[in-house]
């Protein structure tokens, strides 16, 4: 048994936590907005997967930035279907989300099979933007401050989201759409449009998260590669109680669990892969059991809204 407290292990764990945590952070921030508006966006996993595939294709042809843009657009495209079906038509949000996930799984696996099944191309690593001074710090430097620009962007998004929720009319409208949609309606707001905007934003964030997975973290697209990350992001958003900063903390925690396998390998510990794979989900359940009580979720979460609803939610 080698020493777990070497700088190499610490760097690997921290770097891995960021690499695995950024997709969770992006998707979690998106889901948070969608949940605030009252839409439990179970299709998040599908939006991530669509983003991962589209980003891989675009990055393969035109570089990482084209990949990120394509990932966001693909996530938004899936989100648009979700918005039409569950917000505009008021269909069950959970079933719509599952159907979207199945559809995206099918479509991306087929496209991947037809385009790349024989070649399995790999993307070259995305160039990092070292922050002068900070990047030379011992353990944290290479893990935190010598990363691709998108990592800093994702962290900046936390602050941007907090600003939107606290300081803008849209943030207020989101909250009303989730807590008491009829109040928003009576105040002259548009519940359907607000919720649809939130779902589309969630799609863009989740698509970008998926893009990060395929373009930055893996450098390759594999069918079903999100493997539950979207669902973990949903839990993150639920536990964050509406606070973007909490999503960041959770994303790092679960990111560390997801990357534990690599870090343990660096430390020379040989744990069976199936047991290591259980770690993030076990951690999520543990956190849910400890802190999930009375999750302070929006009152109208998961409820379709139609004007003149007798329940008047």
């Amino acid at each position: 048994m080698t020493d777990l407290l070497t700088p190499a292990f610490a760097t690997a764990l921290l770097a891995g936590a960021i690499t695995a945590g950024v997709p969770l952070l992006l998707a979690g921030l998106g889901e948070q907005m969608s949940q605030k508006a009252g839409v439990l966006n179970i299709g998040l996993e599908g939006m991530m997967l669509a983003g991962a595939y589209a980003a891989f294709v675009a990055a393969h042809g035109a570089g990482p930035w084209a990949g990120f843009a394509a990932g966001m657009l693909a996530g938004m495209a899936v989100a648009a279907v979700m918005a039409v079906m569950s917000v505009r038509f008021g269909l069950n949000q959970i079933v719509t989300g599952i159907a979207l996930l199945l559809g995206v799984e099918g479509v991306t696996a087929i496209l991947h099979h037809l385009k790349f099944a024989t070649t399995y191309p790999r993307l070259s690593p995305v160039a990092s933007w070292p922050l002068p001074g900070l990047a030379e710090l011992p353990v944290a430097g290479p893990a935190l401050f010598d990363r691709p620009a998108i990592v800093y962007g994702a962290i900046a998004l936390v602050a941007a989201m907090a600003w939107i929720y606290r300081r803008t009319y849209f943030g207020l409208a989101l909250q009303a759409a989730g807590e008491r949609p009829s109040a928003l309606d009576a105040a002259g707001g548009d519940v359907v449009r607000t919720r649809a905007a939130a779902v589309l934003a969630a799609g863009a964030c989740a698509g970008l998260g998926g893009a990060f997975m395929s373009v930055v973290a893996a450098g390759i697209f594999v069918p079903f590669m999100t493997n539950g990350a979207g669902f973990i992001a949903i839990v993150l958003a639920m536990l964050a109680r509406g606070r973007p900063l909490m999503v960041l903390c959770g994303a790092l925690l679960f990111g560390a669990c997801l990357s534990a396998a690599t870090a343990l390998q660096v430390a020379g510990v040989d744990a069976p892969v199936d047991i290591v794979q259980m770690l993030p989900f076990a951690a999520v359940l543990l956190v849910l059991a400890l802190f999930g009580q009375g999750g302070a979720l929006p009152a109208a979460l998961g409820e379709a809204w139609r004007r003149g609803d007798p329940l008047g939610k």
Partner: protein
Amino acid sequence: MIVGPAAGHFLRVVAGPLLAALALTAIVLLLLGVDPAAYFRQVVQRGLLSPSGLQAAITRTAPLLFIAASLILAFRAGIWNLGGDGQYLLGAVVAAALAAPLAQALPLWLAWLACFAAAAAIGAAWSVLPAWLRAFRGVNEVVSSLMMSFLGLSLANVLIKFVFQDPGTTVPQTVTLPVADRLPRLLGGALPTGVLLGLLAVLMVHWVMTRTAFGTRLRIVGLNARAAAHAGLDVPGLTLAVFALSAGLAGLAGAVDVLGVQGNVRADWNPAYGLMVVPLVFLARFNGFGAIVFVFAFSVLSVGGESAARRLGVPNYVTLMIVAILLAGLAAGEVLDQRAARRRDAARAAGGEAAR
């Protein structure tokens, strides 16, 4: 109006969406460079019209029916048990581990019964945490049951590789149950026992939910938990019961698949039936009879789709895509139909006003 209300209803809810979904699928297949006519011909021929294909499609319904029963029970009680995949696979692994040794020690029927009981028990056990979190701490069960599902899939692999590994082979799998010891086929081989049991499970659940006091209580909890609590119903207790029954049925689905068809479980095997059946029972509006029809149709599609995939060189995932498209089409049809009904009601109300 050109068509009567009933015909219009049928057109909007069944025929239109089906045709639209078929057309959309055909377009996608064309884009993929596959001849849609050849694809659909192959699906129908190999999934429905050829005796061996039809047989395979019927056999495949067995686990799907149990999962449909599991989901109908939970959904009608307002519980979103989405942990079916993990519960199914753990049930399958436990049944596979017990089947071979028990079949030698006990009379066959007793061995099968023990396997069923163990599979139902492990499935139910795997739902205790989400059930408890939902019943006593108000944690949304959608995500907790999904997390348990991912955990269960990995645990199943651990069990196969380190606990129940067949010592006779290096392939990571459980001991294979001899064909002679598997569940028999009834009616001269046409009807696998598992399918009969699956049909019984769906019909039982349908009957319990629509015709018994217990089912009525569950539906009240599902429709409005607060009202149910005011009416003196033990909501946490009923929640635990629903989860246990639903997850137990999912575990049985795994057992029936192993005892009837698979004979063993290999590592990393996961047919992922759990989430697949969710849209099907939803389209059937949680009605047992409707669910049987949809499950059979899906079975035909998936058996025929596999064959078409082999023949035409398209990946097997086309089935996944078709189900999603079909669901979107049927859901959109439902919405159009509701709108038409509302317009009709409005027109009738306006007509009534005028007559007065």
